[in-house]
């Protein structure tokens, strides 16, 4: 019994230590974001990597999400004779839930894993030590620009995801299933307000910080060798994905 208690205690302490370490990492990187010198050139490069290069997959995912929503929504609404509500049935879950969540999961898979691997390789090939040895802060060069880029890019990509999704739904609802174009958009306007859009933005901002925090931390403190980087990358993607869904639930309860 004492042995079991000791084991649980030791596990809890270790988990608490890790969480504290991660939290300090986040606070440090965010605090550097507001202190000069600012690395604008690196920031632009990160925006291009996380944002521009994710556009294709975001557009693809967004359009098909909207199309599936319209298809299933139409099937359900027809049963209760409310096909006219297809517009808000597509737009509301997209803007409040699916847009922020699915775009965050997509960016995690495309860019987050790559960032963890990139930082991890820099760690094991001593590039991070080289920066430290040059009296240059690796956080400022590697982490801060990625964090700031995520804060800028996540809401923008989510917005693109939503717009493309709504037009994907439009294509299925109006062009394929014969709903009138005016009904699709006017009902959307009637059932939605700025609050819904604001919630989506808050969520995507939160997910952006969460994903980059986890991915950068896992890369920065990666284990040894190729195995260490591979493990860090897997952990980063799994942890980010789980945290996105947990955060989505709690943010949802806050805003409902």
């Amino acid at each position: 019994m004492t042995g079991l208690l000791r084991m649980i205690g030791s596990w809890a302490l270790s988990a608490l230590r890790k969480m504290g370490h991660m939290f300090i990492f986040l606070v440090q990187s965010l605090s550097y974001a507001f202190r000069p010198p600012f690395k604008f050139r690196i920031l632009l490069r990160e925006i291009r990597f996380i944002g521009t290069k994710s556009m294709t997959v975001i557009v693809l995912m967004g359009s098909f999400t909207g199309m599936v929503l319209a298809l299933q929504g139409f099937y359900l609404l027809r049963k209760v004779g409310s096909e006219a509500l297809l517009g808000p049935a597509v737009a509301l879950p997209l803007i409040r839930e699916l847009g922020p969540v699915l775009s965050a999961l997509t960016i995690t898979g495309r860019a987050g894993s790559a960032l963890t691997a990139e930082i991890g390789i820099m760690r094991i090939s001593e590039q991070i030590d080289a920066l430290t040895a040059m009296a240059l802060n690796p956080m400022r060069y590697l982490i801060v620009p990625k964090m700031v880029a995520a804060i800028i890019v996540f809401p923008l990509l989510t917005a693109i995801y939503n717009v493309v999704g709504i037009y994907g739904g439009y294509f299925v609802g109006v062009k394929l299933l014969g709903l009138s174009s005016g009904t699709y958009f006017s009902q959307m306007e009637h059932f939605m307000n700025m609050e819904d859009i604001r919630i989506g933005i808050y969520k995507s901002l939160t997910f952006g910080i969460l994903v980059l925090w986890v991915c950068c931390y896992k890369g920065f403190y990666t284990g040894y060798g190729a195995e260490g980087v591979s493990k860090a990358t897997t952990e980063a993607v799994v942890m980010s994905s789980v945290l996105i869904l947990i955060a989505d639930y709690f943010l949802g309860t806050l805003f409902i």
Partner: protein
Amino acid sequence: MINIVGLQKSFGRQKVLDKVSLSISDKELIAIIGESGGGKSVLLRHLIGLLKPDRGKILVEGEDITKLSGRELDGIRQKFGVVFQGGALFDSLTVYGNIAFPLKEKTKLSRWEIHERVEEALEDVGLRGMEDKYPAEISGGMKKRVALARALITEPKIVLFDEPTTGLDPILLHAIHKLITDTHKKYGFTGVMISHDIPEIFHVVDRIAFLYKGTIEVVGTPKEIRASTDPVVRQFIKGSLKGPIEIS
């Protein structure tokens, strides 16, 4: 210049450094030799503050760097140049970008002045014409030379070399050693080099320190080390399988 006093470091239960003491004079070139995995790189990483010791002091020009952190430690680091084992070149930068990086980030030199310094450094290490290549496009020997040029570009007072010739063929090994001695003469830095190149290293450095079982077993000039009667040193220099050093 550098005084290491009673340095101790353990990782978990494994004691890696055990009361290491060593004095390194100004403008001296010293090699640290010893078994693989014996703590040489750990010792070197302590000198630049990448690791904190459990006990002991490291005095750099009289200042104990083990007590420093943040900006104070960065101030001391300005005096150092480091050549890492694999070069540690930045993948995203070209050869030119890598060498120019410390000047761009740490000095207020104009673009033209930086260009002149980088061109001179490229000339020193024999890499003219390779400016636009990325680290992935050059050989291991070239990477070591770029790393050397990057470490020397800010004209540091102290240069640390972590196995600068590992994995190179004998001709390149001699070329890198010559480069180190030539640049040492030109810039007059204090150099600490970790090396496995026996007996070549005897012709390169002023003194040799032998690290064994986490402590400095012997320090002396190459001549003294060669003449040492210590059975551990003799076995290590000869590379003999029989002797007090057990192969783990």
